[in-house]
């Protein structure tokens, strides 16, 4: 139990610590991947347009001034709007962009699970008939009686 808790803590720290460090001490390359050039609609990392160059200079200056990643992004959003963010913010209407894919995955998993359950029940139903000793399924008693009659008539 304690070991499990410790493992969870280690994993949580491994995820949270770099994110916190990145928030406090952002680098130009990571911000270039998270921001979009407003004229060419590519990430800053991929763009060589004049406004992308100007945005890079702005980011360098803000990093040197000690701004956090969120502060730099907020300043750029104030200048260019939310379209400058490569990923939509996790708030308000934009939250839908994060929630809908997850909801889609959950719904799809539910549908697949339901179909698998129904399929397996169908298979069980097929197998529900009792096999006879020779491995074949037993016949309906009425059908068996008619078959016996037919065979007896044939033998006669």
């Amino acid at each position, binding site marked *: 139990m304690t070991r499990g808790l410790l493992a969870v803590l280690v994993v949580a720290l491994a995820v949270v610590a770099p994110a916190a460090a990145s928030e406090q001490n952002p680098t130009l390359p990571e911000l270039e991947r998270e921001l979009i050039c407003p004229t060419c609609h590519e990430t800053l990392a991929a763009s060589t347009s*004049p*406004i992308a160059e100007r945005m890079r200079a702005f980011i360098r200056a803000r990093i040197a001034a000690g701004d956090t990643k969120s502060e730099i992004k907020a300043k750029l959003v104030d*200048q*260019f709007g939310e379209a400058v963010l490569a990923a939509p913010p996790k708030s308000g209407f934009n939250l839908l962009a994060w929630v809908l894919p997850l909801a889609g995955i959950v719904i799809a998993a539910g549908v697949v699970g339901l179909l698998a359950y129904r399929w397996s029940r169908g298979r069980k139903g097929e197998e529900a008939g009792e096999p006879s000793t020779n491995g074949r399924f037993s016949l309906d008693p009425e059908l068996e009686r008619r078959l016996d009659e037919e065979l007896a008539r044939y033998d006669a």
Partner: protein
Amino acid sequence: MPGRLRIALQAAAVSVVALLLALLGWQVFKKDQTPDVGRSAPNFTLPHLGSDRELDLASLRGKAVVLNFWASWCGPCKDEAPMLESAWNRYKDKGVVVLGVDAQDFDVDAQRFVERAGITYPVVRDKHGSTLGHYGVTGFPETWFIDRQGRLVGEHVAGPLTEEDLERNIKIALGEPA
């Protein structure tokens, strides 16, 4: 699963797919559609550069408008600015307004540009570029001309203006023989 429930779920799934396709089509076709000359100029209300005071394009009805889209990082915009300033000084008493729309830019850069170029005509700031799609602007500079009735007239100049372009289209916007 009961038949009705199954039909309802299928109808819901088809509706969602149809809605997504409609959204896709709307996104593809609504953007960057250049308006037609002769139609009403798409209206906008934007703040003046460096101020909270807003300008409503419709408030300029009764005047001819030279609507120039620019950004400070755009080289040809620097070359064009003195020509627009000169036209503003020549025509402002004849019912012409030169209106600059700065977009995809930093406030501070735009203000510096205006100071250095000695621009005195009104300039509004379109921070989010909301007017660009309505006017089919795909680069800078681009210029539209609007007559006194608020209609787009003359040529949509996508690129740097020449003196001849400016004079000819201002005359058209004023309803004078070109």
